[in-house]
């Protein structure tokens, strides 16, 4: 008997937005079905409906001929549907094993059976081939490993339907490979798999069919083998955007040296030296945990420096707090939007003016006209999908949340000399990605120095003028764009010094 999941006529409205309108398609067992669409197209909303977290206004979910209706996420799990959310849902103070077995902790005589719990968790971790200790609290793991714990949690439940919402966004190649092997294995077992990602490369690598959504509506359902990138982009965006990288208009005139880092050592990085000129886009590549983020945090005054010096425009600087760095003209767009970037339960407006409260003042109050103007500018610049400027950020789609952070640090209020972007395109759709690359180049033309960290190799070697590669907290090499290939960068990222 063929297993299938059929959605029909699914609609869902939020105040001011029609997130989904009459969406329907059929996913079959043993196949991976991709859900594709721009930021805010309704992909996550659809998955949240599948997981019983949100009730649809209309529509039917049928699994193997049986119509399902959920009163809670628990019902969906019982019916055999597991969804791995875009935003991590782990209990961060609890151990890995408690998270993986949450809801089904083994008990013996009414007491938690830690032995079994640990053994079973170890089994799963070994199947994945990951260096994770079952007893570590989740908050001490890297973001990539936290994401893998999330995936193991769903795997452990052995559900018939498994849906992944942008699972690879926080991962690097090593974990992505592990994940893809897992997906292939699940496929062989005949599971029904849904897969959301903005990375087309992955879509072609791992999926069999593709459903495209646009503005909450179904656009098309195609076989992956019978389509190509150009067509998909056209379905998603509604127009041709051409070759993202070839069409970039870059800066070719560099100014003086802007930033000089000499022998920087912190708790996480060792003896890091590099320099950046005005107008230059400097890429940082490496695997997760290579120490790229930590270098930037030290420059930004967020982490203490053990030794080494930092010079900005030739002058030695010592930032005690991020505020000092911001005042000196440095902006850091952090990689983890939920933890470090956004105040989720506050408005878009608050999140955008956050670092510049001083500049939106009309004594003694805030200048609400000005802050409204600045916010609307950012919303328009990045095409953030929202009905009002005071929508709370937690209600935005993942990609649109990321755009709020970008909008903050590139707003007209900033007098930035150095812009540090840590994984800025995480969760951003193809069309907007192209715009972000162009924005980076435009800022460089204006004379800013830009540091661009990305774990997507293609992206970093095509956008940056020069790429520094890190591993285990040290710099292992440097390549110019003209000579950069993925192999070369990867070899440096995995070099055994």
């Amino acid at each position, binding site marked *: 008997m063929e297993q299938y999941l059929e959605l029909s006529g699914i609609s869902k409205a939020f105040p001011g937005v029609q997130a989904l309108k009459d969406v329907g398609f059929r996913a079959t067992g043993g196949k991976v079905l991709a859900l594709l669409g721009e930021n805010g197209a309704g992909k996550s909303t659809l998955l949240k409906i599948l997981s019983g977290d*949100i009730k649809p206004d209309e529509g039917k979910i049928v699994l193997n001929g049986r119509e399902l209706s959920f009163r809670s996420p628990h019902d969906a799990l019982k019916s055999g549907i597991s969804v791995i959310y875009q935003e991590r849902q782990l209990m961060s103070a609890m151990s890995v094993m408690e998270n993986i077995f949450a809801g089904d902790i083994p008990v013996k005589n009414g007491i938690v059976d830690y032995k079994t719990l640990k053994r079973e968790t170890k089994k799963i971790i070994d199947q994945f081939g990951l260096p994770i200790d079952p007893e570590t609290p989740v908050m001490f793991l890297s973001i990539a490993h936290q994401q893998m714990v999330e995936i193991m949690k769903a795997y452990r439940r052995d559900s018939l339907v498994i849906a992944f919402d942008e699972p690879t966004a926080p991962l690097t190649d090593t974990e992505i490979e592990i994940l893809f092997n897992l997906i292939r294995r699940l496929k062989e077992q005949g599971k029904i798999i849904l897969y959301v990602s903005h990375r087309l490369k992955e879509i072609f690598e791992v999926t069999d069919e593709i459903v495209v959504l646009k503005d909450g509506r179904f656009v098309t359902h195609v076989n992956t083998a019978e389509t190509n990138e150009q067509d998909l982009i056209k379905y998603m965006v509604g127009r041709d955007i051409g070759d993202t990288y070839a069409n970039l208009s870059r800066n070719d005139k560099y100014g003086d040296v802007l930033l000089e880092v000499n022998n920087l050592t912190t708790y996480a990085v060792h003896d890091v030296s590099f320099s950046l000129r005005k107008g230059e886009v400097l890429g940082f590549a490496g695997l997760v945990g290579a120490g790229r983020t930590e270098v930037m945090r030290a420059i930004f005054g967020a982490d203490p420096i053990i030794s080494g010096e930092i010079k900005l425009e030739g002058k030695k600087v010592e930032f005690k707090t991020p505020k000092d760095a*911001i005042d000196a003209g440095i902006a850091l767009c952090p990689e983890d939007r939920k*933890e470090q*970037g956004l105040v*989720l339960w506050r408005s878009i407006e608050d999140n955008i003016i*956050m*670092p510049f409260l001083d500049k939106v003042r009309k004594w003694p109050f*805030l200048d609400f006209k000005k802050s409204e103007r600045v916010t*609307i500018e950012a919303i328009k610049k990045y095409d953030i999908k929202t009905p009002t400027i005071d929508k709370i950020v937690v209600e935005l789609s993942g990609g649109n949340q990321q755009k709020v952070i970008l909008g903050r640090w590139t707003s007209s209020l900033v007098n930035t000399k150095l812009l540090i972007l840590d994984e800025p395109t995480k969760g951003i759709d193809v069309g907007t990605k192209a715009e972000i690359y162009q924005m980076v180049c435009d800022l460089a033309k204006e004379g800013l120095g830009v540091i661009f960290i990305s774990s997507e190799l293609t992206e970093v070697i095509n956008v940056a003028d020069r790429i520094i590669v890190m591993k285990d907290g040290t710099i292992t090499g440097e390549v110019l764009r003209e000579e950069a290939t993925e192999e070369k960068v990867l070899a440096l990222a995995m070099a055994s010094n």
Partner: protein
Amino acid sequence: MDNFTRISTFKKAIRSKAFPLLILFVIMIVLFTALAPLNDANFLTTRTFISILRDLSVPGFLAIGAGCLMVSGGIDLSQATVAAMTGVTIAVSVGWWNLPWYAAVIIALLIALCIGLVNAILVNELNMMPFIATMAMSTVTRAVMMLIATDQTGQMQGSINYNNPTLTLIGNYEIGGFLPATIIAMIIAFIFYGLLLSKTKFGRSVYLIGGNPMAARLAGINSKKTSYILFMNCSLMGGLAGLIYTSRVKQGSLSAMATDQFTGLTAAILGGISFGGGSGGMGGAFIGLLVIKTFNKGMTIIGASSYVTNVLSGALLLAALSFDYYSQRRQRKRIGA
């Protein structure tokens, strides 16, 4: 969808957590007005409301200080003790040591500020949890207060009387002979802190720190400074409450205002300031207090026994908190967060 306007202030007010309380307030007025004649009394009079507002001024100051701090994600359990300490210090200074009243007030308020400062240091420099740090400070303060309240014969006095007409006037002066000045002071304070929280740079930082301290720090918001200000302000408000109370009852008392701490906190929570921080405001806290005090007053007027009043006010609190919990869960559900 092209001119991304704001939600109107009116809509915001309706959606706020304090709005159901406002409705509750109106319902209570109607009920008490209807029931009062059964007890041969009258509820709907100016006197009733003046008396409600007067009862509200001491916990009002407490709620202002505690509320602002809670919006930033902090909490202060020593505030009521600070209030009592202020009262005792003033009474002892004036009644036993014969200091001028203003010197007594200044000394007492400085002590209050110092306790706030210590709280802030414990939390910010020693990274103690606010809950624990301020609880410990409350114990220490109480001990010091007992020491101060010990007279020459080595006897600890539960309450210390003083005789100073000027000092007594602070809490008892009535404008035009009927409107207590403390009401005006409290209302001005609520408006001042309300504007501070909702309209100024400082206020905005308080909300952002309460919402996500790490993100706030990375966006250059000085959370340490803000925390110091809020802890010290919380204690200072405790001090002002203590001053008004002591002036009103003409004595300093070791056990004064012990329950007002919880009235203040409860009101703040009822009004939408959550324990986690980042939400709510002064308007909500005020309405929260208004509801609590109106209920107590109304019950007295209709002649309910204090036993019934206590049971019902407990029930009211539970109902309000579960409503809050329910609406929050519904909101989270809508968002799928």
